[in-house]
């Protein structure tokens, strides 16, 4: 652990900064340490090359009961995710407040009102780097973007 990270954690422990600030600072330190520049922001209107979000659940061949496992293959177009996120602008402010407070109760400090069209493209671009691979019992779950 570097000195910078220790300082951030000490500041958090002393309650000089919030958890969100600490998280942001740690990300900045990580980016600096790895010597990588932050990924370029996607310009509004420029669509990402990823077309589909895929969710697959396949039987785990190593499991003895694999023959009875469920098989799921879902392909969601990115345009549908984009349209779905845009639909959040139709949510009435009262409902949005309730949603935000429910998220806050779960420990998620996220305000849906802050989601802007340029953020959607950035979010979808970032989804391209995501891959979830879970092997659990008789099933293998995979979430990825193609």
């Amino acid at each position, binding site marked *: 652990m570097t000195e910078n990270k220790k300082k951030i954690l000490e500041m958090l422990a002393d309650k000089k900064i919030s958890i969100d600030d600490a998280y942001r600072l740690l990300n900045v330190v990580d980016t600096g340490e790895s010597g990588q520049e932050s990924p370029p922001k996607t310009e509004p209107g420029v669509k990402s090359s990823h077309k589909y979000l895929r969710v697959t659940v396949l039987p785990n061949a190593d499991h003895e009961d694999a023959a009875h496992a469920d098989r799921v*293959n879902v392909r969601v177009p990115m345009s*549908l995710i984009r*349209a779905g996120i845009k639909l959040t602008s139709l949510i009435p402010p009262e409902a949005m407040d309730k949603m935000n407070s429910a998220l806050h109760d779960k420990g998620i400090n996220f305000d849906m009102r802050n989601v802007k069209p340029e953020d959607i493209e950035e979010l979808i671009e970032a989804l391209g780097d995501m891959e979830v691979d879970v092997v659990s019992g008789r099933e293998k779950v995979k979430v990825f973007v193609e």
Partner: protein
Amino acid sequence: MNMPPVLMHVKIKSINSSFGLWLPLFLLIPLALVVLIILSPLILIAIIVLWPSRWGRLALHALPMSWGVFCAMRGLKVDIHNPRESVFISVV
């Protein structure tokens, strides 16, 4: 704006029964358009009446956004199997 989907394929299978349907969405779009045109005076009145309470503006935006969601459904595929049942939905 994407092209609207043309067909929807729904297939549901269980041990006892099987059901499959090709839904020609391209034929339903003109029908929906006719219904929308017939109902447009009522929709317009509702939007004007609800405008001060912000619901009117939401209703006005809901129409193009719903169309956007409908068009974005092209390429959606859901395929779920288990030993007893299976469900397949595809929008092309």
